């Protein structure tokens, strides 16, 4: 018989290295005389899209388009260290470093422009749509490229180096007090599954995943990360088991360590909530790891809802489910 069930899973997750470890990211920035800018950072884009995020952050701050920004990343010869692409930290931590660096280069540009436009303060200058000019006075503005070009001929350069450190404290083991992480990411997911009571096989029919991302700097990437996380969560819940024997991995191959294929994934509805993180770049915070966590609990709860079997070790293999069903039957017979 095939039985269906629905389950819910929630998660909160501390992003960054945490526990008092100094979490530092850094960036170099230059604004060029062709109206483009370069960002150099050690942060490695492994496909999650951090380079796009950094380009967007710089573009937003400079009133440019993200294709005007050239991001060089992950080159130990040329880029400043920004820690690992881990701990769900690049958008938040390196994003903050990039924003600080862009703002620093921008502030010397604004000072220069204020002088050129005979504006008493740089606060009266704005960068918008590739132009630099006096706020509220469209007659006094020029292309950003022209301003930087003129400045260049006078020996001015708009370059900066900045770093951003996320601070946390270790937790006191006696009192449990401390601030081990900042910020926290929150997520909630629901899964619908179908359990075959004869074979113990579980099919995930649908997952709805909602995550608080602070601010979705790139909604397409957010959706992609959620769907990727959910699929890894399905693998974690149902398939993936690292078998260790005397410290050695028994199944170090994709033929023996199974991960989900296109046929194992259900329709995934990826949604996000934007509750601005005031310490993040434009309100953003990380999403990477948290996207897979609630999936596991949601699926395990959905299995329970479907057939009343409580799985307490991962993955929920057909064997474990059949055993649970058999125990339940025995319990009833007694």
């Amino acid at each position: 018989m095939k039985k269906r069930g629905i389950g819910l899973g929630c998660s909160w997750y501390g992003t960054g290295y945490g526990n008092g470890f100094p979490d530092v990211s850094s960036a170099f920035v230059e604004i060029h005389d062709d109206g483009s800018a370069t960002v150099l950072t050690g942060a490695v884009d492994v496909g999650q899209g951090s380079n796009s995020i950094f380009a967007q952050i710089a573009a937003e701050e400079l009133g440019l388009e993200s294709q005007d920004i050239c991001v060089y990343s992950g080159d130990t010869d040329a880029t400043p260290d920004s820690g690992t692409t881990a701990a769900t930290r690049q958008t938040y931590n390196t994003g903050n470093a990039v924003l600080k660096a862009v703002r620093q280069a921008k502030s010397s540009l604004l000072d220069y422009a204020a002088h050129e436009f005979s504006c008493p303060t740089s606060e009266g200058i704005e960068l918008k749509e590739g132009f630099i000019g006096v706020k509220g006075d469209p007659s006094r503005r020029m292309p950003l490229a022209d301003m930087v070009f003129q400045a260049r001929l006078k020996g001015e350069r708009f370059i900066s180096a900045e770093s951003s450190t996320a601070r946390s404290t270790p937790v006191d083991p006696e009192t449990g007090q401390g601030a081990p992480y900042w910020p926290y990411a929150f997520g909630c997911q629901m899964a619908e599954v179908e359990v075959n009571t004869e074979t113990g096989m579980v099919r995930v029919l649908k997952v709805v995943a909602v995550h608080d991302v602070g601010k979705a700097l790139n909604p397409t990437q957010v959706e992609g990360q959620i769907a990727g996380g959910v699929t890894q969560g399905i693998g974690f819940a149902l398939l993936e088991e690292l078998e260790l024997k005397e410290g050695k991995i028994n199944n170090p191959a994709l033929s023996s360590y199974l991960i989900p294929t296109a046929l194992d994934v259900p329709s995934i509805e990826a949604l996000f909530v934007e509750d601005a993180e005031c310490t993040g770049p434009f309100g953003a915070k990380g999403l990477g790891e948290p996207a897979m966590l609630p999936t596991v609990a949601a699926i395990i709860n959905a299995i329970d809802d479907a057939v009343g079997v409580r799985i307490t070790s991962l993955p929920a293999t057909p064997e474990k489910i059949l055993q649970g069903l058999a125990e339940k039957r025995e319990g009833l017979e007694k």
Partner: protein
Amino acid sequence: MIEIKLVVNDKPYTLEVEPSERLIDALRNRLGLLGTKEGCGEGECGACTVIMDGKTVNSCLVLAAQANGSVITSIEGVGNRRSPHRVQKAFVEVGAVQCGFCTPGMVLSAKNLLDKNSKPSNEEIGIAMSGNLCRCTGYDKILRAVKIAAEEGKE
């Protein structure tokens, strides 16, 4: 060494290959076609997919010598930046690429499906793509991209 003749991306080649040399090595090392990726090297992941005589194959499981006389399409033969194949265009449009390691294989599997079946159902798409593993995207956007490319081809 064995002499083989084959056509890759519409160009004829004559190559001297080792008896134990795999097709993926001939493509990457002898022809410099680095778009074909090696993920697992054991026929599980599909990153090394190429189209050989109208069928997708894992080029890590095919000996170069077995490809003698065959016609092969690798990702370099499927459109480029200026004029991308409709599958590639759809991948970019929906954001179906994250790390990109699976992408060449995915694109070839999708292209070969659409070449044979211009109106695939969701299920047929799923089956055609199930030999290509992706660890990043959760397949969601990939399957959607194939659907979009299929619809575009219908017009």
